[in-house]
């Protein structure tokens, strides 16, 4: 199977055949890459577009047309107003602003408390030398692997015995905030950051008569600012997106935004025919999604660096 010799009567010295092939291959590769990326990016974006699209459609369109159109025929921003003011009778006539208030409150306290504790524990684990430190750290690492579902059952019992379940007072808030106040993942992240601060600074501070506590707040925290901001943002995002736990334990009046979303899912039906008004649903979705997107736009660097760093640790 010897190949016949191809006569290379290419009288052109300027372009080496190989070079030309190389260049077209490069071009082809680039085109392929960009096409792939554009198509996948498009697929990623499509749900968002759809969300916006349907949210602006009129109820008539949504109910009575055979196919939902790709662009609203009747532009209906009033959907947002309706959704905003909506309150479900079945759920005790609580409207969006109440849910929003709940969420902001819970977010505030869990961020405040959670971050505070994370800083303390991370500091102790990273900087201080004490008996049992490595043991505690290993235990904490191990617990990171435990799925929350294992704890839910017992936690529910605990919380209900504290009288917080379905409490018509601050107990509901406590039920939502306290159990998950301490986040081991955040502690781990912060500890890594703290560990990167050189030992010499600590010793120099000690020589200057600085207490541990002061050192923590005056030196380490400012130096770890970006990690702390990341934790705060992750917390806020976490509270905003929390659903299951708060849905189980809190009284309706104290529930969070996600519940409102879900109940709007349920109840925003055209009461006449029992059909679901998807345009209102989508408007609700947009309302719930936008704040996070805003957060993302402003704090993109922190979020993305926090996530990618957690991977590089290996």
């Amino acid at each position, binding site marked *: 199977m010897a190949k016949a010799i191809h006569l290379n009567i290419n009288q052109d010295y300027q372009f080496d055949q190989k070079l030309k092939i190389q260049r077209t291959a490069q071009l082809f590769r680039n085109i392929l890459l960009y096409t*792939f990326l554009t198509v996948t990016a498009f697929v990623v974006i499509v749900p968002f577009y759809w969300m916006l699209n349907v949210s602006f459609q009129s109820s008539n369109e949504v109910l009575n047309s055979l196919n939902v159109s790709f662009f609203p025929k009747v532009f209906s921003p009033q959907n947002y107003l309706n959704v905003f003011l909506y309150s479900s009778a079945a759920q005790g006539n609580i409207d969006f602003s109440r849910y929003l208030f709940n969420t902001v409150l819970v977010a505030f306290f869990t961020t405040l408390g959670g971050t505070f504790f994370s800083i303390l524990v991370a500091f102790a684990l990273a900087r201080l030398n004490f008996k049992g430190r490595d043991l505690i750290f290993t235990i904490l690492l191990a617990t990171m692997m435990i799925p929350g579902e294992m704890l839910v059952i*017992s936690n529910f019992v605990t919380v209900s015995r504290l009288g917080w379940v379905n409490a018509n007072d601050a107990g509901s808030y406590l039920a939502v905030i306290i159990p998950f106040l301490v986040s081991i993942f955040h502690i781990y992240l912060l500890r890594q950051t703290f560990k990167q601060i050189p030992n010499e600074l600590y010793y120099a501070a000690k020589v200057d008569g600085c207490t541990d506590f002061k050192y923590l707040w005056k030196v380490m925290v400012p130096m770890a600012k970006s990690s702390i901001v990341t934790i705060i943002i992750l917390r806020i995002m976490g509270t905003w997106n929390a659903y299951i736990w708060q849905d*189980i334990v809190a009284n309706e009046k104290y529930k969070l935004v996600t519940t409102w979303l879900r109940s709007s899912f349920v109840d925003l039906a055209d009461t006449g025919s029992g059909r679901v008004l998807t345009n209102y649903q989508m408007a609700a979705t947009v309302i719930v999604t936008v704040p996070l997107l805003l957060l993302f736009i402003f704090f993109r660097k922190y979020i993305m660096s926090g996530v990618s760093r957690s991977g590089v640790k290996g």
Partner: protein
Amino acid sequence: MLDHKRDLKAWLYLLIPLFLLTIFTFYPLIKTFLISLFSEYNALTDDFGRYFDLYAYTAIFNDRFFINALTNTLVIVFVSVPASTILALLIAVSLNSIKPLQKIFQTIFFIPYVTNALAIGMVFNVMFSHPLVGGVAAEGLINTLFQTAIDWVGPTATVERWRTVVLIYTIWSALPFKILVFIGGLQNISKQYYDAAKIDAAPKWKVMTRITIPLLSPIISYILITSFIGSFKAYESVLSVVGTVGRSLDRNRWTAVAYVYDKIGISGLDINNISYYSRGAAAAVVLFFIIMIFTFLNLYISKKTVHY
């Protein structure tokens, strides 16, 4: 003396957090185990009852909804994790090979991460919508685009259909985290290795398979382990995408976690005198063990194949 004092001071930092952790993490861990072993556990009175046995476990394995839930979960895990990892790897590698527009694409791919799982799940639900049986709501995006008239997620959707949608959604939302971590890893590979490979005349595909991927393998392993663990806990995503228009999820569509949550709030005993709570606890324990086994399996495999 000084040592003691120093130790004490350090423990002060840990005091409240550890206290909270003990009550809400360590204690429940053990208690859940115990509840699963006391089949007459009464949640209201927190009374363990008389029977210390494994009946709760037999109950759940005889419960077809549990087996079904487990199957649903396993399907999600074993399809979405490899698929999203490979796709994320491809995207990350592509992103890493282009310079212009790289940041823009990166941002676009990351957006799903910051969104509410519940919310976007609902969007998927609407995208795949179909006229309600009996009613005349409009066909959703997918049906319109592909000229089909299938009930994807509604009450009459077949198992394959709604599982497909759930998988699509799971993969879609799992991409951003993975892509970002992979890009971080890729950028950590020193350019010198690529230069050396150039001098060694390695063709592009060889550079990818013999250099890039092996050097990336610790990160790939980390992603696989964490996503396996995470996907076993799937619940909200399924709830929002294929949940019926009622607060709860149809029993046939339960995931393992859904099964557990369903049992909370049902006090009392079932027909076999097994407490629902015990069943839930047993299910949680079973899930835990499955996760453990797979994690150790993953670690074992990665020890053999990952290059550090």
